[in-house]
């Protein structure tokens, strides 16, 4: 047992010595493995990051929800000459009533929204005013940092109350307590009753438009309706300055389905209802669960493509190692002859060369891991993408690189072991 240990120690020592004897060559040899391993880890980290982001976004939207959005149809585009134009589109009261009667619909929360300037003292910023109901908090998973959310009574009494998003609080009330303060939206005063917790900002990588709910302000639906009506007014840049007026009854319905299994059938029913009620495609149905399934599917495809690329690069790396080891065997023919003459068995020669290959590929794998961990960090820093380095990708790629070393080391090692010692000794 002890003898075995010294033997192993010796051949490892000799192996490392031989690798250091040809530093440049060894380095070039392992380059294939380095790139292979680094690309596996880096690409998996980026892929994992994208899917993590998608999952988070979907969680945010609520996996048990169906979201219906009003969309401005393309044919309502205004002609150049017109200076004012009213476009009528979007979800209607009738849609709301009909969707509500679907048995699997547990909850339906409508919203009406507009982008507007919010002022407090001399400070102001643009935010999204969301006129809605108390249930919005529940279906959209809104947490509160301070104060409270809207209540049914607020809605019934048409209270001028507002719950502000995290970013709005930070800009308008950087130091003071916002609760009870009065903010102004289009000359109407609102009392701040609560502040929502910060929510992650979703980048465009997940297939959704980037939106930052931290700039949202929630007010009672009834208050919004009585103050702002159903018109959305905005100016449009163009050759002629013009005002654009949109008449929209509801901007969004957030529908919670009682049972996750019924989400897809419910969304089909909703689609049918909307199809009969609307002549134009002025709505959009978003099913987070479906998006989740899509994201999973995309991830699977991504992983397969990635796996193939990684496999190819590692095989190429392995062939590179084999090539060099074959050259090494030829170069060291005399040495092999000498070792055989003084009593090395074939097994000893195989062990020595195989170990050398495995050391090479392991070092390559190790460097590859370092680079592979570094790349996602740089991607996160410079491209702002989420990356998640999984421990199993490191274990996997390192195991594969050692495996490649063994696989591609066996042939050269056997070739060395089966040289005729007599001829090997006389090899010049």
């Amino acid at each position, binding site marked *: 047992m002890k003898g*075995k240990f010294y033997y192993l120690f010796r051949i490892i020592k000799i192996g490392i010595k031989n690798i250091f004897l040809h530093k440049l060559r060894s380095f070039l040899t392992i380059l294939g493995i380095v790139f292979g391993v680094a690309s596996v880890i880096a690409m998996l980290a980026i892929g994992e990051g994208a899917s993590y982001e998608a999952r988070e976004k979907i969680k945010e939207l609520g996996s048990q929800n169906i979201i219906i959005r009003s969309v401005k149809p393309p044919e309502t585009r205004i002609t150049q000459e017109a200076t004012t134009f009213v476009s009528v589109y979007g979800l209607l009261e009738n849609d709301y009533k009909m969707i509500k009667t679907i048995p699997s619909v547990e909850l339906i929360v409508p919203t009406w929204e507009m982008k507007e300037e919010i002022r407090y003292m001399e400070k102001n910023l643009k935010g999204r005013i969301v006129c809605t109901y108390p249930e919005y908090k529940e279906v959209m998973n809104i947490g509160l940092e301070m104060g409270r959310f809207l209540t049914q009574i607020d809605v019934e009494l048409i209270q001028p109350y507002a719950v502000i998003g995290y970013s709005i609080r930070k800009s308008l009330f950087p130091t003071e307590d916002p609760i009870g303060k009065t903010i102004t939206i289009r000359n109407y005063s609102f009392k701040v009753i609560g502040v929502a917790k910060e929510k992650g900002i979703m980048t465009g990588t997940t297939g959704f438009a980037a939106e930052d709910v931290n700039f949202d302000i929630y007010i009672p639906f009834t208050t919004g309706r009585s103050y702002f009506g159903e018109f959305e007014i905005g100016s449009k840049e163009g050759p002629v300055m013009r005002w654009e007026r949109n008449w929209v009854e509801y901007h969004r319905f957030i529908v919670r389905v009682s049972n996750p299994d019924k989400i897809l059938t419910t969304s089909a029913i909703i689609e049918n209802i909307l199809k009969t009620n609307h002549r134009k495609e002025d709505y959009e149905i978003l099913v987070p669960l479906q998006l989740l399934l899509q994201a999973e599917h995309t991830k699977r495809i991504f992983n397969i493509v990635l796996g193939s690329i990684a496999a190819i690069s590692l095989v190429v790396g392995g062939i590179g190692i084999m090539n060099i080891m074959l050259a090494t065997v030829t170069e060291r023919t005399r040495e092999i002859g000498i070792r055989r003459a003084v009593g090395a068995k074939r097994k000893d020669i195989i062990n020595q060369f195989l170990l050398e290959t495995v050391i090479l590929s392991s070092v390559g794998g190790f460097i590859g891991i370092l680079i592979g961990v570094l790349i996602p960090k740089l991607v996160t820093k410079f491209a702002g993408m989420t990356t998640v380095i999984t421990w199993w990708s490191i274990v996997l790629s390192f195991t594969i690189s050692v495996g490649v070393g063994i696989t591609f080391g066996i042939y050269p090692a056997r070739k060395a072991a089966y040289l005729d010692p007599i001829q090997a000794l006389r090899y010049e």
Partner: protein
Amino acid sequence: MRDQNNSIIVMKGVKKIYDLGEVKVFALKNINLEIKEKEHISIMGPSGSGKTTLLNIMGCLDKPTDGEYFLDGININQLDDDHLSEIRNKKIGFIFQNYNLIPQLNVIENIGLPLIYRGVNEKEITEKSKYYANLVGLGDRLYHRPTELSGGQQQRVAIARALVNEPVMILGDEPTGNLDTKTGKEIMEIIKKLNEMGRTIVIITHDPKVAEYGERVVKILDGEIIDER
């Protein structure tokens, strides 16, 4: 295991035939040879006489096509590659014309090489290697690489390596072939001394001056022993 009369080598009708397809080359025709313990024997012959083939068989690097070869009482004919390696490792010490040292290893590592394949521990290898390095007069060159040594010094390393495993026989293949006359003489003196210390020595050479050192000279020509004295 050993014969009663202490024979290290017993060869009976040893033949080596190389089958090259159309022609058969009889490298060794019919060799009968016995070498006793503590003998110093020289095997002489011109190139192509078959003496290298004989050395390969004696050194267990090759097996005879026909006939019997006993080394230290062991029938070599029946052994497989692993066992032949073991025999080389334990029973034979080689000295080659071109020294055959491993360039990456220093003097002490080169000397200790046979012991690695026996699983001897690091400390013992170093001790033994140092002892034999001192014996051949290389005590001050332990950590030099072969390329930093003269031809004579390299051959001394090879001799120390041949001794380190305490073999039953030292097999020299033209040990002075690459050396100048003076150094060659020094090397032969060392070998002579080893014989006096009780080692069995077999030297293969075409140089009569080297052969002179042997107590017995066997002449070989065309694969046959033609003279023995």
